[in-house]
């Protein structure tokens, strides 16, 4: 964290930002602001000359297949994100972002693509799209229940080097073994929209704690947020399996 505050990188929102993914940035920015910590958002577009490696936290959203492969090209050409992750900067990848950060993904047209390999995860399309509310028990200490909405065709298998973000209690998630998402070090990936950080403030604060290098002081959560979490956790998934 520099003198200007926490630098939040919004990575390729023109390609990976289809499902309100910008919301995760807004949540981080406001939660810092509420604590009096300044922040700066660095928007990295696919037209940008390079991906900066100096930001404190990186956010990637989801996108359509073509956008996802285009994002892959941009990120491998200018490896700022990979360098930042290697020094421990937190990275959040949602949906298509998860697939791009994994080792390998296959798009709907059957073509296999190499991912950035920041997490050990291989994604292949399934016969049916997973669409609906998801609830998981987060495996990261202190986060608790995660609630979100999933909408993805991909099914993701995790390798030995990574662990799931949560265990699915409702919904589909990665597919195999009731796992949802994938974590390796400070790289956190998930299929949950909502956006996930809006619905799950504990995860937002965990990422921010990693970004500033120390746990953040708790703040009083807005009461509508607690009510929303209760309401969503009582909803039925649309695709119970």
């Amino acid at each position, binding site marked *: 964290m520099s003198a200007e505050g926490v630098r939040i990188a919004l990575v390729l929102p*023109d*390609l990976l*930002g*289809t*499902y*309100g*993914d*910008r*919301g995760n940035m*807004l*949540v981080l920015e*406001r939660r810092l602001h509420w604590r009096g910590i300044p922040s700066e958002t660095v928007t990295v*577009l*696919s*037209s940008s000359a390079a991906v900066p490696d100096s930001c404190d936290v990186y956010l990637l959203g989801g996108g*359509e297949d*073509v*956008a996802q492969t*285009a994002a892959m090209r941009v990120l491998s050409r200018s490896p700022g994100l990979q360098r930042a992750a290697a020094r421990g900067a937190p990275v959040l990848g949602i949906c298509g972002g998860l697939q791009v950060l994994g080792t390998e993904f296959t798009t*709907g047209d059957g073509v296999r693509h190499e991912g950035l390999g920041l997490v050990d995860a291989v994604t292949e399309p399934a016969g*049916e*799209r997973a*669409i*609906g*509310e998801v609830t998981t028990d987060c495996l990261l200490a202190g986060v608790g229940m995660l609630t979100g*909405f999933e*909408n993805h*065709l991909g099914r993701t298998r995790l390798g030995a080097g990574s662990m799931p973000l949560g265990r699915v209690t409702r919904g589909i998630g990665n597919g195999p073994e009731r796992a949802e998402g994938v974590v390796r070090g400070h790289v956190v990936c998930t299929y949950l*929209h*909502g*956006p996930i950080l*809006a*619905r799950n403030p504990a995860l937002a604060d965990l990422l921010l704690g990693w970004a500033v290098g120390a746990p953040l002081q708790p703040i009083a959560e*807005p009461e*509508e*947020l607690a*009510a*929303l979490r209760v*309401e969503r956790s009582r*909803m*039925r*998934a*649309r*695709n*119970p399996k």
Partner: protein
Amino acid sequence: MTGTRRDGDRTTEQGEADGERATAGGVTTPRPREADSPPTSPDPSTSTEPIAPWRVIAPPHPSPPAPGSPLRTSLALGAGRVVASMSRRLRLGSGGMIGGRLALSLQPGLLARLAAGRRIVMITGTNGKTTTTALVADALRSRGAATSNVTGANMLDGHVAALMTDLSAPFAALEVDELHLAQVTAEFAPSVILLLNLSRDQMDRVGEIRTVQRSLRTALERAPQTRVVANRDDPNIVSIGAGHPSVTWVSGGARWMHDALNCPRCGAFITDLDGPWRCECGLTRPEADWTVTETGVIGPDGAEHELNLALPGHVNRINATFAVAAAVELGCDPAEVLRRVADLRQASGRYSTVLLDDRVVRLLLAKNPASWLEMLDLVSGHDRPLILAVNSREADGYDVSWLWDVDFEALRGRSVLVTGDRGLDLAVRLRYAGVSCEVAATAQDALVRSGLEPDVVANYTAFRDLLSRSVAR
């Protein structure tokens, strides 16, 4: 998106499901929203289940005459009309849909026969279809009778129903769901197709913009004789229209651009979206034939005409320009057309001022980020009380993540009441936007707590429910 869902997979999370899917032409396509859609609606041409009760009225002919025979057509029309009127009397809805569906099932080629000899304008796009259709119908009436699917039934059965209501009308203005235009142009060639815009809408149902684009391009390839009027400021629309031999381009300014930052053809980043962009793949922003200005509209002849609409907002100036372009294309007098579009006050309740629970309320429909942008623009210009209502039923889409793509920050300093199935999501979004708000359990509750003469911005089913309870003023 490529997933398919069967009816059994549906949950009625919010106790209501409307606008379900139909299999048409062998391709699974989503059903668009429909105000008067019955609870089940499989493909009329392959399943008889939903219309089974009506068999009593119109039993299948024991040895059906050849398709297209006059007897069969008149049977189909007659049966459709009887059902439509019964449906109205039984308060099942406006009757348009179910009558059209029955008539279509009795004679699949009926749409082409009903369209024959008429000048038909088809209107499609993500936002503004219904309003523009009403504007086009009004404009066409300067030359003769025009029928229209004003109830919002915007697939083939709705078109059949609309055309059946006035068999002698020489003109028709028909709203069509983006994914169903290709089926329409497979049946007949409309005189004019309006391509308004294309943006994200109901991601969990309608699917990728790319899929919609492909379908619309197919639709235009099937109608080379049709005059296409298209939005040159929307790269997605430019990509669809660019290959067609006769396109009239309308320019109203670039508004919602988050779904068009990259070339729809090759994925390259488009710089200078407001300027004369040209992508490396060759896709180029076309020259405008009609340009919407601050005060009026400049036509192909270069003359500027005044445009003072009763409908609010810049977005309706664009919609009206599309209507004018279509009507002029069909020989209407521009001055007369401009006067008519200026006078339209509301379209199927959109923008209408009504009485709701004895209160005067203005109803605004906003269903996706692009249309919320327009409606927030509209309400930012005044400080009337504001109620926002968001549902997430099947016809709305279950995922409301898009709320975070809407710049509610524009409402800072305002006090807002939120309601609907997703009132809490809205409240959290507004909290992060720095807008103070109160959550009301129901719309009635919100109205009681609101100050006088509020604007209500609601998404699809929330809007529909408010409209159905309202009384015209």
